[in-house]
Structure formats: C-alpha cells, structure tokens
C-alpha cells in the first residue's frame, strides 16, 4: 500500500521566516515525488518534482525540496516566506512505471504567513 504522510496539518510563520514542510512516503518501487500548492479557491499548482539525480531540487518561487531514500522523505523548504505563500501544500507520489501514473497525495499542510 502506498501512503504519503504530512505530519504537520498547520504551520504558522512570520513573513521573512524560513519554513520546512515534512513529507514521508511508503512505496516499494520506483517513484516520482512532487509538491503542489493550492491557494484558496484555486486548483493545484505544480511546485517541483524529483525522480533521480541530485537529491535537492529547485522549484518555483524559491522553493526547494530534498529527497532522502534512507528516511523515505521529501521535505519542502523555503528560506524566506512571503504573505502570498499562504496556501495548502500537498506532497504527492506517483509510481514511475505504472501506465497512468496516478498521483497519491498526502492530506496537506496549511501554511499561514503572518505579516
């Protein structure tokens, strides 16, 4: 059974602070890992992905994520958050060799950025 766990349901930070959102997964095969952001009332937007190579991947708007095979993790980070980063962040896994490669999502972390 594939699972994606996001341990923090809600994170509150001040503008300019750094933030790390945790994602742990359980899957036996080769996978793609990705992060998506969902602003209120909008669809999901892609932030970044990892499949192989350098375990630190850069995404849009200053986000980066680090893959760790030993920890089965793919944590998302940003060095300095902006108020517009307030949103729900979803970690997702998709099997690399399955025909449709449907995404399996975590339940999200809501980030609230205070001025």
């Amino acid at each position, binding site marked *: 059974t594939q699972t994606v766990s996001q341990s923090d349901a809600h994170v509150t930070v001040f503008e300019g602070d750094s933030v790390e959102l945790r994602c742990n997964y359980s899957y036996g095969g080769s996978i793609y890992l990705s992060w998506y952001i969902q602003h209120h009332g909008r669809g*999901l937007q892609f932030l970044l992905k990892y499949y192989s190579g350098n375990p630190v991947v850069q995404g849009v708007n200053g986000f980066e994520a680090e893959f760790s095979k030993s920890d089965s993790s793919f944590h998302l980070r940003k060095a300095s958050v902006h108020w517009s980063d307030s949103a729900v962040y*979803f970690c997702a896994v998709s099997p690399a060799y399955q025909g449709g490669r449907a995404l399996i999502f975590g339940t999200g972390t809501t980030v609230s950025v205070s001025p």
Partner: protein
Amino acid sequence: NSKVIQTPRYLVKGQGQKAKMRCIPEKGHPVVFWYQQNKNNEFKFLINFQNQEVLQQIDMTEKRFSAECPSNSPCSLEIQSSEAGDSALYLCASRPGQGATEVFFGKGTRLTVV
C-alpha cells in the same frame, strides 16, 4: 499557469439527482485525470484516460460514477444518483504525455449535494 478548464465551478444537486461536470484539458495533453478532494483534503483518484481510452480507474462507488473523454469534445464526469457523501471538489488534470511528470490541474467543480 494551467489552462485546464472545468465547468461549472459550482454545482448543487439534490440527493438522487444526476450531477455532470466537464473538463477541457490543455491542448495537446492526451492524459486526463479525475480526482475527488473532500473537505479533509483527502484525495481520491477516480479515473484517468489517454486520449479516449481508460488507463486506470477505481471501482467507481457502486457504479454511480461514469466518465468519458470523447474526441473533439470535453471530458466529463457524471454521478448518476448523487449522495451527500459525494459533496467534494472534483479536480480534473492533464499531462502532456506518458513521459512527462508534471500534471496541470483545473480549478475544480465544487459539488454540494443537499
């Protein structure tokens, strides 16, 4: 920015009524997904297509759900007899092809079953 178009944005149906929502994937994207996102932010994959062919689907909840992606027409997801538990945000997404990894989502159709 995603160009996946979903209509309607909001849909209100009574229990037992049909609910139909549509999705126009991004141009040139042959792979289309439907997901259900409930109020607890839990996602359920429903079905995906490559062109008009079904790639994967779940056992669609007592067969009340049906979906299609005809050529030259919007994709659609229909619930034959809506139940209160179907109230959710239904998200359509498309992907450029089997080799691509990024998936582009529409804004969703929020279904409320009263």
